[in-house]
């Protein structure tokens, strides 16, 4: 308990923890008004030229299905819709804030970490399609952000991060089990703290907080459970690495309610690998 309070206090007092660009908040506000036009949203995005150029690169990739066909932000909004554009901007901003921020204080392989995160986003998106959901971009972001807490630990509390890493190796356990044992705080808690601080939607707080233990009574159970499965499938396929080498337990409730018992997993695993191959564009976004 003492460790938990100490670590959370330390986290609260780190003033250098990054913020998301103001563009995200402005777009969120604009999209609450049904009369907002594509031009208005386009203007807000283009106030940040670096971000606008990343958004254009992403929407022109195979991942979004219109390779090389979209020339302006307004055109992108018209073709992809407000919701998708907001997801693209959030994704691009997340990479802007964290990608390539090296930490000399740890040997953690960040390239493998990013591959794991992107693959989880892509896998969550494939699971969304498997479940018949139309919210696939939100599932992608939820998967992408699920281990956000590890980035914060790695970059702002490297001593604690290294301790948890080596403890997980020695005990041959999962990273969150190691964190729980050492600090009584996990990367799920820390990631959810940052998602709240960023004022991101409640469903993202839930997926970050509960991705290792999706609760059937949760408001956002489907998305949380999809990220839970995405993490497990990606580990089992050996794509990237999030800091440990073990497979978390898949909830039996999720296994049954998603129909994994009766369905062949081959089609889903194919779809997951297909989405991951397209999502590798995010590795080269900066």
């Amino acid at each position, binding site marked *: 308990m003492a460790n938990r309070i100490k670590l959370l206090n330390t986290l609260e007092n780190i003033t250098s923890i990054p913020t998301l660009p103001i563009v995200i908040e402005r777009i969120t506000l604009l999209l609450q008004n049904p009369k907002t036009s594509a031009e208005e949203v386009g203007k807000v995005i283009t106030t940040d030229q670096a971000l606008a150029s990343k958004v254009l690169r992403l929407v022109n990739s195979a991942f979004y299905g219109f390779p090389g066909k979209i020339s302006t932000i307004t055109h992108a909004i018209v073709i992809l819709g407000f919701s998708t554009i907001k997801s693209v901007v959030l994704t691009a901003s997340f990479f802007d804030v964290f990608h390539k921020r090296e930490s000399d204080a740890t040997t953690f392989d960040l390239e493998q970490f990013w591959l794991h995160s992107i693959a989880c986003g892509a896998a969550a998106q494939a699971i969304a399609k498997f479940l018949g959901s139309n919210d696939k971009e939100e599932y992608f972001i939820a998967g992408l952000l699920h281990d956000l807490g590890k980035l914060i630990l790695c970059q702002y509390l490297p001593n604690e991060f290294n301790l948890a890493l080596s403890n997980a190796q020695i005990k041959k*356990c999962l990273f969150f089990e190691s964190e729980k044992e050492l600090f009584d705080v996990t990367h799920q808690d820390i990631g959810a703290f940052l998602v709240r601080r960023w004022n991101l939607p409640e469903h993202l707080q839930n997926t970050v907080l509960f991705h290792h233990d999706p609760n059937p009574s949760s408001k956002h159970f489907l998305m949380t459970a999809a990220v839970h499965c995405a993490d497990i499938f990606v580990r089992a396929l050996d794509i990237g690495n999030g800091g440990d080498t073990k497979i978390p*337990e*898949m909830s039996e409730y999720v*296994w049954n309610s998603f129909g994994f018992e009766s369905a062949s*997993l081959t089609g889903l695993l194919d779809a997951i*690998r*297909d989405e991951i191959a397209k999502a590798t564009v995010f590795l080269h976004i900066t």
Partner: protein
Amino acid sequence: MILGREVCGASGNVLVSKGSPLSAALGRRLANWGISTLIVEGEEDSHLEENSVLISPEKLKDELMDKFTNVIHKPVMKKLFVAIYQYRVHKNI
């Protein structure tokens, strides 16, 4: 050392055919596609070891079992293990 089975993409298209000679460059290219394991034939070439993308079905089973070791006693995880192992052997990944 050569490929013991063809390597297929997620949509079933053949990326590299069976019998293709292995090289470090091919290993890196496949790794970039998210393919981290391959089924191979012939003797091991020492210069390929550092790319660690080559694996036999038996070694794949051992490595997967190591990942699943803390949870394999759970019925769902046993089913998942079997599904993943068969998939990876079939797809040569």
